[in-house]
């Protein structure tokens, strides 16, 4: 073979053969052949590729889980922080609404001076309806000062310490307050009870009272300022042979859920004790 063709001739022949093969390939003459050859190659390559990806996932997956768990923890912490913030904002909104209502009440009764106080506790005895507030004699509070909410009368201060005070609610069973019934103007006495309900006693028999009538403080007795709303009559009890009528009252204030109250600081209660006749001073 070496003797038949010289070196340049061999190069020329091989080049022509390569060019011929390329020409046949470009012209599509090898497509059938290439598909036969490529199919098993691609299958084999796919299999190897899948095995490689599975092995890579096996090696890297635990690291991804750790990262994901860290991200979940961070998101949970963020979620908890946002939830706490929402609760805080809701609490602030409630306080804002109460304070707005209290401000509205103070504006509608400009004749009084007020001091706001938070309710910090209730009397441990279930027989007494008292609340404890976080203002005391250091803030200028004194025994007997009336306490109101944005809805109406709450009670009055019965005991004061430098930094706190005890308020007897009008629902306390030992309470009795002089009130008037609107629109008739009839006088009556409002009493608390052991169950926290309030009722009207000693309503004159000839007074025309009906459910829905408003109950206001009358100012008689000097313990409370006049014209502070207390509630509405819900039912009237009238007996022909009785001296007085009585009635049940729906208070305008929810005394079980008091949070913030206003103390009327410019009202001086009058002690009528010395004016009441006793066996010693008839």
């Amino acid at each position, binding site marked *: 073979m070496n003797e038949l063709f010289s070196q340049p001739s061999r190069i020329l022949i091989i080049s022509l053969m390569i060019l011929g093969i390329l020409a046949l390939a470009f012209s599509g003459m090898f497509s059938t052949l290439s598909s036969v050859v490529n199919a098993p190659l691609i299958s084999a390559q796919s299999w190897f590729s899948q095995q490689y990806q599975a092995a890579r996932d096996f090696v890297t997956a635990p690291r991804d889980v750790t990262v994901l768990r860290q991200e979940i923890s961070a998101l949970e912490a963020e979620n908890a922080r946002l939830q706490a913030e929402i609760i805080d904002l809701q609490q602030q909104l409630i306080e804002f609404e109460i304070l707005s209502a209290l401000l509205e009440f103070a504006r509608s009764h400009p004749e009084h001076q007020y001091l706001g106080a938070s309710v*910090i*506790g*209730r*009397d*441990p*005895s*279930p*027989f*007494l309806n*008292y609340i*404890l507030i976080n203002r005391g004699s250091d803030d200028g509070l004194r025994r007997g000062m009336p306490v109101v909410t944005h809805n109406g009368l709450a009670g009055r201060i*019965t*005991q004061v310490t430098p930094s706190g005070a*005890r308020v*007897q609610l009008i629902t306390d*069973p*030992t309470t009795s307050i002089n009130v008037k019934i609107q629109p008739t103007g009839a006088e009556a006495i409002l009493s608390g009870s*052991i*169950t*926290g309900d309030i009722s009207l006693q000693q309503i004159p028999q000839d007074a025309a009272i009906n459910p829905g009538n408003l109950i206001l403080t009358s100012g008689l007795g000097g313990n409370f300022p006049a014209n502070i709303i207390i509630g509405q009559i819900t039912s009237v009890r009238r007996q022909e042979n009785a001296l007085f009528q009585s009635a049940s009252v729906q208070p305008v204030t929810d005394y*079980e859920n008091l949070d913030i109250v206003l103390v009327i600081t410019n009202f001086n209660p009058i002690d009528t004790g010395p004016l009441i006749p006793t066996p010693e001073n008839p």
Partner: protein
Amino acid sequence: MTFLIGLPILIITAILQTTVISRMPLLNGTADLMLIVITAWALQRQISTSWQWALLGGMLIDYYSGLPFGVYTLSYLALNGAAVILKNRVWQFSYLMHLLLALLGTLLIQGFSVIIILLQGTALPLGTVLQQVILPSLILNLLLTFPIYLLINDVAEQIKPSAVKL
């Protein structure tokens, strides 16, 4: 020592009583957390100075209450005395003794309170008082006895481990 440890416990109990427990009524009755704590403490066999807790706890609740000062102090001291007698006579069933003391204590304190309010001139419908205040309070107190007894028992064991029989 036990008194010093009791001081913060009793102060926290009094604060919990006025801020939380008193705002969670059943009908019109509320639990008396201090009563349950003091009686549970008095029933611990290794504790001999439980009267100090009764005195301090009573004074704290009297300070917060609108009832005349001394109502709770005297009641708790009396219950402490009853607990000591029971503890010395009955050697087992401390938890049952606690239930009994919770029952007696509730009736004693609430009966005492009713008498004082009646003496102050306020009319109380006794049937309503029983149904709306005393019985619900009693139920709440009895419910509190089990967890409080376990808790106080643990505290007492930490402070003064009871003697082990060999």
